[in-house]
């Protein structure tokens, strides 16, 4: 065979196509492999602690240096408090906001509002944290400190009024507020998208039956968009649990159990951020326990991502759209 023919086979168009296809397939496999790699690495690092500590990991005390107790329950409690309160604030406001944007907003305002939401989502979480640290915390301290607030006293079995003079401003409350602010753009944008997808013919059908604008937007638009709204809630839940920097700066990072919103707390992400760098230096068990925390976070985030997808398809089946 002549040299020219060999060149054609080696460098010709169809060979290039084959080589290119293989190369791109490798790329596709790499992108999928990243999550597998992350999961297996985290799992491998968490494994020793799970074996050695076992149920001790679910203990209430985290004190790796002195008494060597590795209970992560306090962080789970902190995360529950902070994300719970933030979603309590963000979900109703976010859904109402997306309803406004989709059904009530004058046309001229729509684009500016959407741009503001995009920019809001773009503000780095460390900047939210900075603002919370320098503005929100002092504000809450000055606002709440002079108050007397009723607290359930287990000794007398009745409410007593306690002075809030000691309130530092740090804790569950500012973390939940700043987290709610950060979640709102996502909730609004994702639910807005599913409300815009509701066809106009359904709105017209409702109006033609004599329903008012409010009735139409709640009973028809919101109900039809409900799977998408549910997905928005789950996605934001995943983000809330995983948010690190803003929360880190304002919870107070105190390893006692939070009992109410004015208490300080310590969340799952914060303990990794604060202690992993130190632990990797020479505290193998502590490092491993911290990777158990990472594993919990990873599983939670995967759970929320997958459930969000399932809610959408379940909802569409329920409505008969699929």
């Amino acid at each position, binding site marked *: 065979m002549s040299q020219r023919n060999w060149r054609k086979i080696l460098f010709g168009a169809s060979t290039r*196509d084959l080589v290119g296809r293989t190369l*791109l397939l490798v790329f596709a496999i790499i992108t*999928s492999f990243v999550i597998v790699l992350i999961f297996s*690495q985290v799992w491998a690092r968490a494994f020793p602690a799970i074996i050695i500590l076992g149920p001790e990991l679910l203990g209430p005390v985290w004190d790796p240096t002195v008494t060597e107790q590795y209970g992560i329950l306090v962080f789970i409690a902190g995360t529950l408090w902070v994300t719970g309160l933030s979603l309590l604030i963000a979900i109703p406001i976010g859904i109402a906001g997306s309803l406004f944007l989709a059904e009530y907003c004058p046309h001229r305002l729509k684009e500016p509002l959407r741009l503001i939401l995009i920019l809001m989502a*773009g503000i780095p979480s460390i900047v939210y944290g900075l*603002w919370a640290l*320098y503005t929100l915390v002092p504000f809450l301290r000055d606002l709440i400190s002079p108050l007397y607030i009723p607290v359930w006293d287990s000794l007398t079995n009745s409410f007593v009024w306690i002075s809030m003079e000691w309130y530092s401003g740090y804790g569950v409350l500012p973390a939940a507020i700043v987290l709610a602010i950060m979640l*709102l753009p996502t909730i609004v944008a994702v639910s807005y998208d599913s409300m815009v997808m509701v066809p106009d013919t359904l709105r017209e059908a409702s109006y033609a039956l004599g329903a008012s604008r409010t009735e139409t937007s709640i009973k028809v638009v919101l109900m039809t968009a409900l799977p998408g709204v549910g997905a928005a809630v789950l996605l934001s839940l995943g983000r809330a649990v995983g948010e690190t920097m803003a929360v880190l700066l304002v919870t107070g990072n105190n390893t006692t159990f939070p009992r109410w919103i004015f208490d300080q707390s310590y969340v799952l992400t914060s303990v990794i951020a604060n202690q992993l760098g130190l632990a990797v230096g020479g505290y193998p068990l502590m490092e491993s326990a911290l990777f158990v925390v990472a594993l919990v976070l990873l599983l939670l985030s995967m759970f929320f991502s997958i459930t969000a997808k399932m809610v959408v398809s379940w909802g569409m089946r329920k409505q008969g759209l699929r």
Partner: protein
Amino acid sequence: MGTSKSITRELRSWFRLPKSRREFLDRLTFVFLAVIAVIITLPFFAIVFEVVANGWILLNPAFILTNMVGFAEGGIRNAIVGSIELVAIASMVAIPLCVGAAIYTTEYAQRGRRRARRWVQELNKWVIRIVEFTADVLAGVPSIIFGAFGLIFFVAVFGRSLIAGALTLALMMIPTILRTTQESLRAVPLSLREASLALGATTWSTSWRVVLRAALAGIITGILLAIGRVIGETAPLLFTTGFNFDAPWGFLDAIASLPFTIYLYALQGHTEIIRLRAYSTAIVLIGIVFVVDVIAVWASKKVGLVVRAGGV
């Protein structure tokens, strides 16, 4: 003329009394939801105002063009250049990877090879499903997990360095770039591909010369969105970059970055100068993010792609 008439009609309908209880409720709902919308956007203005009002005091050319001297003196050039280096290297890794994977899923696995053997088609279907599913899961992984992973995977090899931080950021860019690229490739009309294939071109050259060019603006939108997202990330850099008062280009040197610098300032305490320097750094960071995001939104309008707050 039409609009002005509709506005007067709208205004007139607002100034007359409601005709029924339900119309009254409609107006009440409108007012209530409008107030909510204001409440949602208020923090945005509050934060931007707070940052700008405090940060502009120190902001001058010297602050941007000189390196830090200790934490309280000098400028933040090292952090700015460091951030740019990190994101540039991360993009160089992530873009080819994601665009390649997107081309494979949309051009080869989905469209190409209709005459391929049955099991090849089945396999390709699964590749698409797996790639998209893993990208969506990856998008939800907390940023601190990327940091922890970078520490045990990249730092173990490279030490706390520019390359370790950049690779960690590259992983975070994958979902955004991959999904937007797929979306914009799918938006390219089939007729364009057929025209090229009909001339005897291979899928490879069709993808590169025709499809990719047609989808370019959409892909750039995705890249910009990903850059806007990771340039503000602190958590992945906590354990991976170290800190540096200079901005060297060595891959194995420790490197500073804007978000990490802000974090260190926040930890430094509450002296006035540190607070102001933190806000000044935040202005620079927010400025970069906003410019990138606005360009992304503008580019997305050109190609009819919908950008939504919160990314993918």
